[in-house]
């Protein structure tokens, strides 16, 4: 018996992601949860602009591709037409925390019964390593070549904490995928987020801290260390909203 098999909710297509990138792990976790909940045929996904733009080629479910940042609005349209379906968005930090802040905040505030997988790697990936709203102070990117400074570029946004203040949010957690223990925790959080939607409790979001070795200019192993040493202190892991129905 295979202990680990390819999830049915993933296609056979090989990843295009860079070595050491976390997207493959996160895609797999989402697909495993979809399999476990037996919702592959009743799920509609929305993919973003950015490195995950082609995730419609990976997730073996009905998928729509959204404009930059607009995935929560697209998902809202789908969910209102198909309230019995499970609808999720998969978004990066440039997508969700910058151009799409209005869409994510209002989908959350409306208590839209969708699930968002929010991948935070503190940088713009596909566009080539520019500063993101989540870029840490002092972090060097192509558009913050001297390191991000709070006096001119402001502070990184803590999305999970911010959304946890909204009444429409049922579940919000921040997880990481830098080691097997955290990967298991991340999967549990993703499962809870989907269960919140199934139970009609409101909006759910899982922020996943992720590595971007290519744009960080580090090796995959160095990237893991950088994430642990720099990202987790500023972006603490944990469940910021946890309804009793999924505990």
């Amino acid at each position, binding site marked *: 018996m295979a202990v680990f098999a390819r999830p049915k909710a993933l296609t056979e297509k090989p990843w295009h992601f860079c070595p050491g990138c976390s997207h493959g792990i996160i895609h797999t976790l989402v697909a495993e949860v979809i399999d476990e909940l037996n919702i592959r045929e009743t799920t509609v996904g929305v993919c973003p602009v950015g490195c995950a733009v082609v995730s419609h080629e990976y997730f073996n479910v009905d998928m729509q*591709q959204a*404009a930059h940042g607009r995935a929560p609005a697209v998902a809202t349209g789908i969910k209102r*037409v198909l309230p019995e*379906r499970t609808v999720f968005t998969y978004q990066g930090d440039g997508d969700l925390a910058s151009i799409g802040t209005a869409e994510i905040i209002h989908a959350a505030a409306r208590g839209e019964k969708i699930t968002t997988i929010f991948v935070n790697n503190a940088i713009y990936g596909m566009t080539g390593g520019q500063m993101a709203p989540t870029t840490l102070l002092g972090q060097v990117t192509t558009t913050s070549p001297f390191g991000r400074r709070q006096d001119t570029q402001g502070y990184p946004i803590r999305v999970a904490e911010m959304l946890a203040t909204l009444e429409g949010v049922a579940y919000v957690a921040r997880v990481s995928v830098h080691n097997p223990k955290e990967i298991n925790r991340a999967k549990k959080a993703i499962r809870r987020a989907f269960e919140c939607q199934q139970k009609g409790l409101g909006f759910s979001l899982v922020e996943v801290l992720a590595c971007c070795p290519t744009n960080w200019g580090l090796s995959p192993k160095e990237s893991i260390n950088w994430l642990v040493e720099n990202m987790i202190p500023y972006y603490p892991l944990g469940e910021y909203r946890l309804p009793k129905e999924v505990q």
Partner: protein
Amino acid sequence: MKGNEAIGEAAIRAGCRYFFGYPITPQSELPEYMARRLPAVGGVFLQAESEIAAINMVYGAAGAGARVMTSSSSPGISLKQEGISYLAGAELPAVIVNVMRGGPGLGSIQPGQSDYFQATKGGGHGDYRLIVLAPASVQEIIDLTWEAFALADQYRNPVMILSDGMLGQMMEPVVLPTQEPPVLPKPWATTGAVNRERNEIFSFFMQGEQLEEHNRRLEQKWQAMVEREKRVAEFFMEDAEIVVVAYGTTARIARRAVRQARQVGIKAGLLRPISLWPFPDEAFQRAARKARVFLSVEMSLGQMVEDVRLAVNGQVPVHFYGRVSVVPSPDEIFAMICQLADEEVAVNGSVRSA
């Protein structure tokens, strides 16, 4: 009914059950009407946080297979252009209503027609086209809205109803459609991959050749629209020597001016494009064979006149008269017709009927 509300009722009767919008003058009666009416017919009205969100909700709902509509007025339509380009790129059917006001920028809340370029030449990025329908009465608003949903489904493309603040606020007696709307199956919709291969809705093509192929295929669709969907109304055109061209509200006013001209014996006629894209150019070419001069009248500094000139193709002179966010009076247009008639008489002899 009031023009804006008539759009809503026609949409509901055409099977539209989803409306995503954002308030802006002078179209707010439409979302307000949908907010009252849609729940009663099992539909959903949702006031989005912005025009951008509204059009992207339309994208999601259209992809999920619904008949869906949004509406706005000029500055709001500018915000929707991103989503309109994506709808066209992903081949999703939706009806978009623009109740035009003056611009650019915040402009005014008075009726305008200065979004003609934006509506007919793209507006958003990329090579795409919308079918743009311009009603000139509340009854026609109803008829064209009803038809717009069928056209959107047929071509899998957004269709725009181009109204204006005057038509939106106007009340007229109407006959509402009672027949059941034709419903096309939508096997491409993302409704959950139950017992079928999964569906994907996207407009991104990594390779240039793939995108070109996609655009070439879309081009065939635009061509089919050009061949089948041109619409025009003619008034006193049988022997017209001075052809007034106008659409929407301006056409109603021009019609009266043309009638005044006929009363004083000037052979004037009115050509009213109903489809602004595809532009009904054959009717213009036909008219140009008999006419001496064209006069395009718009509530803009001159936008449709460019298409009129293209269609007339130098056969006869094309003049322009425009007001910006001010509704022209019949007398103003009549005066322009008389002036052109006098010039024609001076140069080429009588344009008056015997």
